[in-house]
């Protein structure tokens, strides 16, 4: 298509630009500002360079919670993505059942984070929670409040319950967009169901999966409310993730400088990993050979 060149368009972008500036760039700059100064009061601020960064990076609290965070996000993605795709593949395509499934799937997405935390806190309790009681009833010793592994599993399970629907719905819409002719052609080519999945469905889902993976990564990497409500980061520090560590540092101890440096590092990690995901997945299927335009 022909693009129209029109300088007026810049004026239309201006409000968005201002909005982004106020909501993202200016707060971010403030954080950058804090992260390189030692501030005692309004009149006493000293430039300390990368001192806070060095300190924070050497802090075992950050190192530990960063490791936990990666493990958490990794397991969440490893479960939710395949599970979401599988659910989408099994969903009925037409009729009343299709609408019903969509509604049921959408329900967890509509529940606020802290409510999810509360629900699971009760649901998984060993004494009165349905889940916890049943598990214990089967002779398995389970208590998320004092067993680190149990706590960890519960937090992951909660996230899977809350967010698998998102991946399923995204994939469902992606699958619906594949024209019937593809399936017909594949049947004619005697493709097995696995081959249909691998060569038709999965490639066509690439777009929505990129979005799904990015959303789930960023969200899970910054998770705060749910584990905070469920376990409060315990037992010990076993479910204390990055954002909880950060909050403790910034609000609990009022270490503004290190907290700002921490925030910056946190932000850069999210940015870097998201970028890595995005580029690897979109490069995955690129034609390595040079594109030759067809002469017409």
């Amino acid at each position, binding site marked *: 298509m*022909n*693009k*129209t*060149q*029109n300088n007026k368009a810049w004026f239309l972008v201006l409000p968005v630009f201002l909005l982004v500036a106020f909501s993202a760039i200016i707060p971010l700059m403030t954080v950058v500002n804090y992260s390189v100064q030692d501030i005692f009061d309004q009149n006493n601020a000293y430039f300390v360079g990368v001192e806070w960064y060095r300190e924070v990076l050497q802090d075992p609290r950050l190192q530990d919670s960063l490791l936990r965070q990666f493990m958490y996000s990794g397991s969440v993605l490893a479960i939710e993505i395949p599970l979401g795709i599988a659910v989408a593949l099994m969903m009925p395509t037409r009729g009343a059942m299709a609408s019903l499934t969509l509604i049921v799937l959408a329900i967890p997405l509509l529940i606020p984070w802290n409510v999810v935390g509360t629900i699971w806190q009760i649901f998984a309790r060993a004494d009165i929670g349905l889940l916890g009681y049943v598990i214990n009833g089967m002779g398995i010793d389970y208590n998320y409040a004092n067993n680190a592994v149990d706590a960890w599993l519960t937090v992951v399970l909660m996230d899977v319950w809350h967010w698998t629907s998102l991946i399923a719905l995204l994939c469902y819409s992606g699958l619906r967009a594949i024209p019937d002719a593809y399936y017909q052609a594949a049947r004619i080519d005697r493709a097995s169901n696995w081959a249909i999945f691998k060569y038709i469905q999965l490639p066509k889902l690439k777009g929505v999966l990129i979005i799904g993976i990015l959303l789930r990564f960023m969200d899970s990497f910054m998770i705060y409310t749910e584990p905070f409500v469920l376990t409060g980061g315990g037992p010990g520090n076993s479910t204390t993730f990055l954002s909880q560590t950060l909050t403790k540092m910034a609000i609990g101890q009022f270490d503004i400088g290190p907290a700002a440096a921490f925030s910056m590092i946190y932000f850069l990690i999210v940015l870097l990993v998201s970028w890595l995901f995005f580029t690897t997945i979109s490069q995955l299927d690129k034609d390595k050979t040079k594109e030759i335009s067809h002469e*017409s």
Partner: protein
Amino acid sequence: MSLVLENVNRSVDNTSHLKDINLSFEPGSFNVLLGRTLAGKTSLMRVIAGLDKVNSGRVLVDGQDVTSLSVQKRNISMVYQQFINYPNMNVYDNIASPLILAGTAKAEIKRRVQETAEMLRIEPFLKRYPLELSGGQQQRTAMARALVKDASILLFDEPLVNLDYKLREELRQELRELFKLRNSIAIYATTEPNEALALGGTTTLLHQGHVLQTGPAIEQYRYPINLDAADLYSEPPINILPGTISEQEVTFDEYASFPVAGHFKDVPVGAYRFGIRPSHMSLVPKNDDDIELSVQVEVAEISASETFLHVANKHFQLVLQLSGVHDYRTNTPVKIYLPPEKLFLFNSEGGIVKAPYPERKKGAQQHG
């Protein structure tokens, strides 16, 4: 209402889409833009409509410069290849929509919608929704919407290309009738020479963003200004054979020669390119001096009363347009005959030197 384009240039990302376009359209005229895909037809229409800006040059309506006027402020209607209608409105409301926007009185809207629907024969479907109509009816609805508002300039961008050929045939005929009664400038873009010939009016040949030739289509068919123009005017394409003219003889690459006669008499000696229309060659000699060529059949394309016979030998590839059904299998050897008096002569730059038609009768062609 007249429309003039002065030295219009447009390029996008350093690719030139329109080059030095100078055209003027008479009030009440019917104009055809003929050119291949990407020849600049749509670009030109979008510039006329005000949808695209020019890099240089001017667009004048009634002598007034409208180059920087936005599309809303120009009184223009456009019909596209795709059948574009409002899906949530019935046919009546679709047709009425431009009038409602213009604030026309209700009774007047009713009268005009009725009149236009009648003209396009969609009156029985006024209550239906676009998706309940056939492709032809949908496109008629889109055309009715364009026609109803009495726009001073009507633009049709290959409106029939997505229809079955039978429907195309019928709508083409109706269109020609429709425009006779109008005062507005109609501009119709097409890739098909037959459509240009059938519709009549003034045809502008576009090629790679510039104008090759302007005039009645049949004139251009007989007297193409150069090879590109000759090539545009044939379906199948004109055949080109390189050759030389000497004092006595015309020679094609050693495989055929004939004495200089007829319209080649006064031509200076040298290398030329010879063009022959597919319909002018035959499988039986029509005259004694027809040139006989031995070839093999590549494929015979048959359309009811005609056959397009694609043939080749080691020197060239040709296509013949023959009447009747000639069902040859691939690789059948045949002899074809080429009448020298029907040859177009082009110089090495592709410019026309001689056309095979006797003399040019200006304005002698009447349409409809």
